[in-house]
Each structure stands twice: as structure tokens, then as C-alpha cells.
């Protein structure tokens, strides 16, 4: 299939154009070998031909500044790459055209056929900015389409033009950049090693041969030999090239524009007087975040209930349909429970990412990054880490994947390592059950409900720990790489809801895929561990239950719950819990909590399900019931209540700090390229969890 790439600056309106062109056909994947998000959609052109549309990361230049920017350079310097486009849709904001053509000018020199798409036509008209397209066309000889991506206006023209261009690609005009003597020398030298019929492409290879994945090691070595003979000053040449290109197209744009070539958005500046104000800016940021999380929890509660009841219903059907009790339990408690545990978090993740994308598209996130950069730098992070930290409030997996925009490797790594400290959705069920053992639900401090304050305290504890851990890591990890902020604060604009929906969808599916496979596998493994055990023990427990049923005259339901309870105790999982007991006893935990901790390493929310089985509640996950049952539990030795305030505090602290999510570890492994960092992260977080629980329990009890 023919490939069409959408390229442009970060704030050009690229995503809107991609969304309007591809609609629902868009899919999100990764560029092979790298963890950079790739959006692809297939569309049918008016001629009936199907083509693939790819949205590339937004970049200013082919001289990259971060991992996700490098992918563009890497693909465009390799015509054999499976993503190398047949045609480019270059998207630029008509209001800032003079500042958005650097990349365009580089693409021209790569000899690519281009359709120039100018967005924000509506705003330009409102602002009385007229661009004489004929002047632009005669300068570059490419078709140009001003559009309004919000209303689909101009899109049909683009589709027809794609058809035309694929049959008869526009002729590339002359080279925009004249190479210096030294650059030409380098290109000549490289021509002995690589075959390329494009001078600028070869020049880019000269700049980046050390990182380009498509060069064979032998080729890179040869290039290295050639280059070491040259006086090739990469940075100086990049600067020269960039300046020369600007000189070239600035004149053209100025000639074509009716009035001033760059438009100042007075409205944006007025808004920023408040939104980035020293005090107001911060206050508004916290209010906005409070509202976002409020919305996430309240809106998500309905679909979450639907998902839970749907799974309950399906589980019931399975139990009826499958005659063998072993298999029916495997399907309903192993597979369905795992699936349900994943799907139930979809609403929260989708809502959070929808709202965050709206804020981003509106232009606010860039301001938040600007405001918090200095603070976060003190903790080894970058202003851009803020986005990951907020997203971590829903789920660490998509949050860690959004660290890819951080160009400095050390800051990106630290963000990846500390984000799991932020309390994610999966911790909420655990907190909900346990806060009841710390303070009564009716207790108040002033006008505030104490349980609510405690909940907030747990969140705050996660945030503070993330920052402190960042500070520690900053001292430990050594790096000479320079860190930059340099963030453009775009004009505020009405957010594109379709783009936000698409982003929410893609982030959610990344969660389902990444977390899904791990949680499902572990859920099945846990089912096996908790359903089977040493034969003698299992049989003994069955006999014991039989005797107890007769002695205590239990009804059928009570007998089934008791059997589940005793079976779990005798199972492999129960055995592991008992092994763990000496280690976790100083934290105030017994073997039952040990089993719950062990199973929580699949995903934290499994705690609730395990607890309800351990306390013979069958499959109920009603928090009130679980809480009552936990409260009634007595320590067999002292005959005192098992779940005391110190135990609950200790357990809460453990869940705030411990790395109990295999899916997150799998994503960290992928993003950092090895097991080293996830293992360090695991040990660090779990040690912290153990020590803080130990100290809290020993002091409180």
C-alpha cells in the first residue's frame, strides 16, 4: 500500500488533520525497535485506491532533540524503511507560517513530493490575514491547501490531490539549502560508502551515522573513518543550515502575506496574565487538577459498576454452562476475574486521558510544564515529567509511556522510576477498605471528614515520596547530557474533542494490551496456586470442613464459603503465605495478609478479591461486607481483633510504597531496554514499603 506521512511542527494542528482524514480507522502502534508511538490509518481515496496515512511525531527540524524526534530523521534518511512515505502532507499553522517551515524546507531537499496543508484558515480569515498562495506555489511548486480542520472544510480537495500526486508526483524544485564546502566534502566522502541519490539525505547521515539504526556496523565504521578525515563540525553546520533555510523562506512568506507575517494572539497573552501568574497560576493549576480527578472518580463510578456487574453475570453463566467445577472455577475465577480486573479500570484511565488531552490541546499543559519546571528540576525531573506524574494518578503504564517526550535521558529515567509512587486507580479499593480501620467513617476534624483527609494524605504521601525518590536518584545517576526546557507556549485554542477521544482511546488500549497480558497470565497462575496444594493438606482441609459443617450445622452457602477458605489455606498460595509469615510478622501481618500481599504482586486490586475469599465471603466484593468481616476477625493467640489501627496503617503504607504491579515492571523494562532498572525500582520501592510499615507498626502498637 502507498504510504502518506503527516509531518509538521508540534503545534501545527497535525493531529486534527490526521484525525479528520482517518477517522475511526486510526490505530496506534509503535515504530519497530523503538518505543515511539505511531498512529496509522487506512483510507480510500476518491479514485478507489486505499492508502496508509501515518502521523509522525511533531518536530521542528530533522536535526533531532529527543528520542521521539529522532525517529523522523531515522526513517526519512532510509528510503528502504517500511515507513518511508511516498508522499508527505506537511501541516503548518497559517498564523505562524513564517516560523513553521524549517522542517518543510528540509523535506523539500529530501526530494519528497509534498502537499502543503495550512491549518487555522478560519482564524486567519477572522484576523484578516491573507496569504497569496500563488506566490508560495511559484516559489516551491507544490500544491497548497488552506483548511479548517475543525469543520472538514478543504479536506475533499486534499484527498483528490493525494490521488493526483500519487499518479504524478510534483516535481521537486531546486535545493533550498546550499551546502558549504566542508559539508559537500563530507557528502562526497560518504558517497563511497553508501548509495544515495539525494545530497541532503547523505548530509543527514553524515550528522547522525552514529545513531542511525539502518546502517550496518561495517558501514558505520567506514563512515566513521571517512568522517574522521573531515573537519565536520556537526553543531556549527546545523546552525548554518537552519539560518540559511530561514533566510530563504522568510522572504517568500513575507512577500505572500497581506499584513504582518506573524500574528500575536492578544487573547492568549491576556489569559496568560492570569493562568501563568505567580500565585493565580498555581492556584488555578491545583483547582483544575482537583476538578479533573473529581470528574475521573465520579464519572467513572457508573461504567465501573456496569463492568463489574457484567462480569458477575458472565461468571454466573459460565458456572451454569460448564459442568466440571474445576474448569468452571478456572474460567470464572482465573480468566474472567483477571479480565474484569483489567477492564474495570478502563473508565478512569479513559476519562483522565480525555481530560488531559483536552487541556493539552487547549494549550494549558505547556503552561503547566513551564510553571513547574524549576520545582521539578530540583527533584531530578523535567517540567514535562508533570504530565506523567498526573497521568500516574490513573495508571502508571500509559504514564510511563508518555515520558518519551522528555529528551534528557536521565530525567526521563527518573520520571519512569518515580511515577509508580503516585497512587494509581488500583490502590483505591485497597485504601477504601483499610481507612475504615484507622478512623471511623463518622469522625471529623473541623468541617472535614477524617477518612477523606486520610485518603488525601495517602495521595500526598505518594507524591512527596515520588519527589524525594527523584531527588535521591538525581544524586546517584550520573549524566553529562544537558537538559533543556525551551517549550513553546502555543496560542490557546478551542480543543478538538475528536482528537481527545482518539487519544483517550489509544492510551486506554495501550493499558489494556500492556497490563492485560501480564495481569491475565498472573491471574491464571494465581488461580492454579490457590486452587491446588500439597495433596495431603488439601484432603485434610476437605475432611475438616466436612466435620465443621456437621458440627456447626452450616447451610449450603456457608459450607461452600468455608470450603473455599480452607482450601486456600491449604493451597500453594496459602503455603507461600505461611512461609512469608515470619518475615511480615514484624509489620503486623499474618499469613492471610501474606497471601493477599503475594497475590497483589499481579496487580494491587487483587487484594480485595483475595481478602474476600480468605474471609469466606465467596465472590462478594462488597466493601462494606468485607470491612465487617475483617473487623470481626480475631487473632487466634491473643483473641484480640486482627485488624487494628496499627495493622491497617502498616498495610496502607505498604500499598502506598511497594512496587506491586508486574505490568508496570514489564513496561519499565521495555522503556529502559533491560531488566536492570525495573529490578532496582522493585527493590527500592519494596524496601521502602517494608521499612515504613515496620516502623509505623512498631511505633503504633
Amino acid at each position: 500500500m502507498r504510504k502518506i506521512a503527516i509531518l509538521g511542527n508540534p503545534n501545527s494542528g497535525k493531529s486534527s488533520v490526521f484525525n479528520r482524514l482517518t477517522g475511526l480507522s486510526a490505530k496506534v502502534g509503535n515504530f519497530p525497535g523503538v518505543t515511539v508511538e505511531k498512529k496509522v490509518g487506512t483510507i480510500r481515496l476518491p479514485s478507489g485506491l486505499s492508502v496508509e496515512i501515518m502521523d509522525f511525531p511533531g518536530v521542528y527540524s530533522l536535526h533531532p532533540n529527543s528520542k521521539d524526534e529522532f525517529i523522523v530523521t531515522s526513517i526519512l534518511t532510509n528510503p528502504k524503511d517500511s515507513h518511508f512515505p511516498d508522499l508527505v502532507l506537511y501541516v503548518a499553522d497559517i498564523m505562524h507560517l513564517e516560523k513553521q517551515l524549517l522542517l518543510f524546507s528540509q523535506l523539500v531537499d529530501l526530494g519528497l513530493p509534498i502537499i502543503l496543508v495550512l491549518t487555522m484558515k478560519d482564524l486567519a480569515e477572522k484576523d484578516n490575514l491573507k496569504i497569496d498562495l500563488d506566490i508560495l506555489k511559484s516559489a516551491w511548486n507544490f500544491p497548497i491547501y488552506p483548511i479548517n480542520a475543525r469543520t472538514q472544510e478543504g479536506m475533499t480537495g486534499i484527498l483528490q490531490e493525494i490521488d493526483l500526486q500519487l499518479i504524478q508526483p510534483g516535481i521537486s524544485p531546486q535545493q533550498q539549502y546550499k551546502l558549504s564546502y566542508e559539508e559537500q566534502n563530507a557528502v562526497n566522502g560518504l558517497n563511497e560508502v553508501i548509495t544515495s541519490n539525494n545530497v541532503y539525505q547523505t548530509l543527514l547521515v553524515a550528522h547522525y551515522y552514529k545513531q542511525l539504526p539502518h546502517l550496518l556496523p561495517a558501514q558505520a565504521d567506514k563512515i566513521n573513518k571517512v568522517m574522521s578525515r573531515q573537519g565536520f563540525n556537526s553543531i556549527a553546520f546545523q546552525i548554518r543550515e537552519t539560518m540559511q533555510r530561514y533566510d530563504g523562506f522568510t522572504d517568500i512568506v513575507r512577500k505572500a502575506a497581506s499584513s504582518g507575517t506573524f500574528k500575536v494572539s492578544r487573547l492568549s497573552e491576556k489569559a496568560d496574565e492570569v493562568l501563568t501568574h505567580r500565585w493565580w497560576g498555581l492556584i488555578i493549576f491545583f483547582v483544575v487538577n482537583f476538578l479533573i480527578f473529581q470528574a475521573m472518580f465520579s464519572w467513572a463510578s457508573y461504567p465501573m459498576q456496569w463492568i463489574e456487574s457484567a462480569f458477575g453475570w458472565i461468571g454466573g453463566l459460565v458456572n451454569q454452562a460448564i459442568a466440571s467445577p474445576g474448569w468452571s472455577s478456572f474460567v470464572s475465577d482465573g480468566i474472567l476475574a483477571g479480565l474484569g480486573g483489567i477492564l474495570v479500570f478502563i473508565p478512569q484511565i479513559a476519562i483522565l486521558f480525555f481530560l488531559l488531552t483536552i487541556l493539552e490541546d487547549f494549550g494549558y499543559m505547556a503552561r503547566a510544564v513551564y510553571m513547574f519546571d524549576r520545582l521539578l528540576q530540583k527533584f531530578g525531573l523535567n517540567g514535562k515529567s508533570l504530565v506523567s506524574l498526573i497521568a500516574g494518578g490513573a495508571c502508571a503504564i500509559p504514564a510511563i509511556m508518555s515520558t518519551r517526550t522528555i529528551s534528557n535521558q536521565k530525567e526521563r529515567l527518573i520520571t519512569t522510576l518515580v511515577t509508580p509512587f503516585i497512587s494509581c486507580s488500583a490502590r483505591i479499593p485497597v485504601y477504601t477498605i483499610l481507612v475504615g480501620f484507622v478512623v471511623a467513617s463518622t469522625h471529623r476534624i473541623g468541617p472535614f471528614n477524617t477518612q477523606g483527609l486520610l485518603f488525601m494524605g495517602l495521595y500526598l504521601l505518594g507524591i512527596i515520596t515520588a519527589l524525594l525518590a527523584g531527588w535521591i536518584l538525581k544524586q546517584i545517576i550520573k549524566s553529562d547530557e544537558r537538559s533543556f526546557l525551551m517549550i513553546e507556549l502555543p496560542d490557546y485554542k478551542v480543543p478538538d474533542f475528536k482528537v481527545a477521544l482518539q487519544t483517550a482511546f489509544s492510551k486506554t488500549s495501550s493499558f489494556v494490551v500492556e497490563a492485560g497480558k501480564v495481569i491475565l497470565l498472573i491471574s491464571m497462575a494465581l488461580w492454579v496456586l490457590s486452587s491446588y496444594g500439597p495433596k495431603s493438606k488439601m484432603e485434610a482441609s476437605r475432611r475438616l470442613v466436612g466435620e465443621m459443617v456437621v458440627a456447626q450445622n452450616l447451610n449450603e452457602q456457608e459450607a461452600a464459603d468455608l470450603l473455599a477458605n480452607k482450601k486456600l489455606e491449604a493451597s500453594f498460595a496459602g503455603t507461600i503465605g505461611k512461609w512469608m509469615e515470619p518475615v511480615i510478622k514484624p509489620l503486623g501481618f499474618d499469613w492471610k495478609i501474606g497471601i493477599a500481599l503475594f497475590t497483589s504482586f499481579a496487580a494491587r486490586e487483587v487484594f480485595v478479591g483475595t481478602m474476600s475469599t480468605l474471609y469466606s465471603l465467596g465472590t462478594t466484593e462488597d466493601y462494606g461486607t468485607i470491612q465487617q468481616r475483617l473487623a470481626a476477625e480475631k487473632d487466634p493467640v491473643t483473641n484480640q481483633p486482627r485488624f487494628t489501627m496499627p495493622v491497617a496503617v502498616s498495610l496502607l503504607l505498604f500499598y502506598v510504597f511497594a512496587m506491586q504491579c508486574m505490568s508496570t515492571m514489564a513496561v519499565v523494562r521495555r522503556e529502559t531496554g533491560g531488566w536492570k532498572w525495573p529490578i532496582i525500582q522493585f527493590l527500592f520501592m519494596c524496601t521502602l514499603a517494608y521499612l515504613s510499615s515496620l516502623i509505623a507498626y512498631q511505633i503504633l502498637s
Partner: protein
Amino acid sequence: MFKPIIAKNLREIKQGKIIGFTDENISKLLISKGILMGSIASLVRESPFGQTYYVKIDGLRFGLRKNEIDVIQVTEL
């Protein structure tokens, strides 16, 4: 009359015309974002936690760190 061009720091004079950069690595990134020689730059405000600056350049706005803004040399308008 001849008026000598004196390079100043944008943080000192708040507004000026860019006449040069003092660091290659940083200037490479600045110019690729359209912060060029001849551009009119003005410092609007400092961020809540300090040391980061809200800068207007030719109709665009940027958040720049102290070490980034200090690379920009300007002259009074």
C-alpha cells in the same frame, strides 16, 4: 550619529532585538524553534518557582530556563 551596538542580557533589559547567541548547543535548538537573529524578544514574567521565564519572540511565546535565556544576546531597541 554612530551608535555602538552593545550586547546585553535579556533578563537585564527585558526587551530587545536578538543579535547573537553565546552557546552553540542551546542556540541550535533556539533557532530551530524560530528564535533568530533579528527577532524582537521580550521577557514577560518569571515562573512561580523562579528561574524559568515567559518570553515573547516575534508573536510566539516560550518558556525558557535561566541558562537558556542567558544565551540570547540582545541590543536595546
